[in-house]
């Protein structure tokens, strides 16, 4: 309980520091939100209008006043109004998020389907051709950028064969290519991870004794070894989520897929600051929240091991 409390405190502290930094960065940066808003409305901008919008945004207040006002409303999920669409930024992000979560889940599934059998087979047949080709596959997979995989898959399945929709969203079929692309990219990382943690788990000294007590080969492998192999995999979940954030942004742009990733890229090109701010703080929160729950999960699956199995 004490540990959970301490971690929750450091989680909140991190969020506060990060959101403050992002606030300062954005508000002290060159560029004038007022003119961004007016330009979005596509009318000739007068000084009069600029001043009015600035007043509305509170830009004439001191930076400290702006900060406290921002922090207060941010905590109440009032993340400001999009400069471009005039919608609440929170709503925009929340509307885009499920689509991103779908392809993330699809990607995790794809990665697991590819990496678990290949990684564990490589470990069980260490040094064989299976192992060697798995390593080759992993290092090659880690070197091909995901947008290139995406482009090739679009070319192959959408343009040449015409089996699947290339871009957009709406049906389950639209999820397939983005999930596959993202999952293939992630799989290479997991193949290596699962291979090495399986190898380590096979060295676990107690397994011989357990096997001498008659526990079947199957059970030994999938209940005992697998459990031990899972520890390092779980401990890098935070890293996986980090890479997933970058991955979804790129993949959503490649496939013209309307999720949080393409929303943020659009917002950056249009300097739509409330949305950018909301997204970055939300993602930072997600990463550290995963990290936190991760530690708890590890404590549950491997008590008294703490963060010993941590790999970076």
């Amino acid at each position: 309980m004490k540990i959970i409390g301490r971690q929750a405190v450091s989680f909140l502290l991190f969020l506060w520091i990060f959101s403050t930094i992002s606030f300062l960065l954005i508000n002290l940066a060159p560029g004038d939100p007022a003119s961004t808003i007016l330009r979005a409305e596509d009318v000739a901008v007068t000084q009069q209008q600029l001043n009015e919008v600035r007043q509305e945004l509170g830009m004439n207040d001191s930076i400290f006043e702006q900060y406290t006002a921002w922090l207060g409303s941010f905590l109440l999920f009032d993340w400001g109004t999009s400069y471009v669409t005039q919608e609440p930024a929170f709503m925009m992000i929340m509307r885009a998020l499920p689509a991103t979560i779908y392809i993330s889940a699809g990607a995790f599934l794809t990665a697991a389907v590819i990496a678990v059998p290949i990684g564990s087979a490589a470990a069980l047949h260490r040094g064989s051709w299976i192992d060697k080709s798995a390593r080759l596959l992993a290092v090659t997979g880690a070197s091909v950028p995901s947008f290139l995989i995406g482009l090739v898959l679009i070319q192959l399945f959408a343009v040449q064969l015409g089996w699947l929709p290339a871009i957009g969203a709406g049906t389950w079929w639209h999820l397939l290519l983005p999930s596959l692309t993202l999952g293939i990219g992630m799989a290479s990382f997991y193949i290596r991870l699962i291979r090495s943690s399986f190898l380590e788990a096979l060295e676990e000294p107690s397994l011989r004794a357990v096997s001498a007590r008659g526990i079947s080969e199957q059970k030994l492998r999938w209940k005992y070894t697998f459990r031990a192999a899972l520890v390092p995999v779980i401990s890098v979940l935070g890293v996986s989520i980090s890479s997933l954030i970058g991955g979804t942004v790129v993949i959503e742009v490649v496939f013209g897929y309307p999720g949080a990733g393409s929303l943020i890229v659009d917002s950056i090109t249009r300097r739509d600051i409330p949305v950018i701010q909301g997204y970055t703080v939300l993602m930072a929160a997600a990463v550290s929240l995963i990290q936190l729950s991760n530690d708890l999960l590890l404590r549950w699956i491997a008590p008294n091991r703490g963060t010993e199995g941590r790999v970076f």
Partner: protein
Amino acid sequence: MLQMDKLTVASASNQLVKQVSLSVNKGEWHAVAGPSGAGKSLTALSVYPDLLPSALSISSGAVLFQGEDLVRSPEKLRRHIVSRHIAYVFQDARSSFFPLLSIYKQWEDILKVQRPGLKKKERREKMEEALDVVLLPASVLKQYPSELSGGQVQRVALAVAWLTSPDLIIADEPTSALDVLTSAHIMELFQTLQKEKGCAILMISHDLREVLRFADMVSIMADGQIVEAGRPDSVLTAPKHEVTRRLCRSVPVLRSSIRREGAQ
């Protein structure tokens, strides 16, 4: 019941156990003693050759258990025999329990294999009974190996023997990492198992007083060979081989008995 016949264990370059023959009868406590590096542990591990370090193998000889040669039988049959009839107790008991599962979960798996007919409640009762025998509270069941002390883990290992009622317990210096009081208790538990469950015991021992007090038979090993064997009171009080003599001399109680014999 257990017969080792001219057993030789070798690495790529040399023989570590040479032509060892020994036998353990039903319900008998057979101790193996000798200086370190004599090949005692390897001899004990050879009963289930899969436990041997991967660089070593049995190059010749046989290990007969109830008539079945464990060296040459197929892996599956061998494991079946070993798991149903033999229990291992190691010096470092912690390394014989999987660190990521609670004692309850590990015992449950063992009982499911060894006593397939039992219901969940009956399994639980058996476990509590076994813990009772080794004087541990039932709360140990939900703990993990890392949460237990060395003596507790060793008692848990003996409780496994109680659960499975093997015909033979093979123990490799089970008390050498423990303090005097705990090891006395562990030895008594072995005796309980021998008396009440009728288990035979093959024990590697470094303490000749223990051998003298508990064992029915003793084999002295040196340099990979058995140099002397017989009843402890005769072997240890009238050692014939140089190694045995040296071993006995290091134990004050025995030293005096040797001197007395020499004077007669």
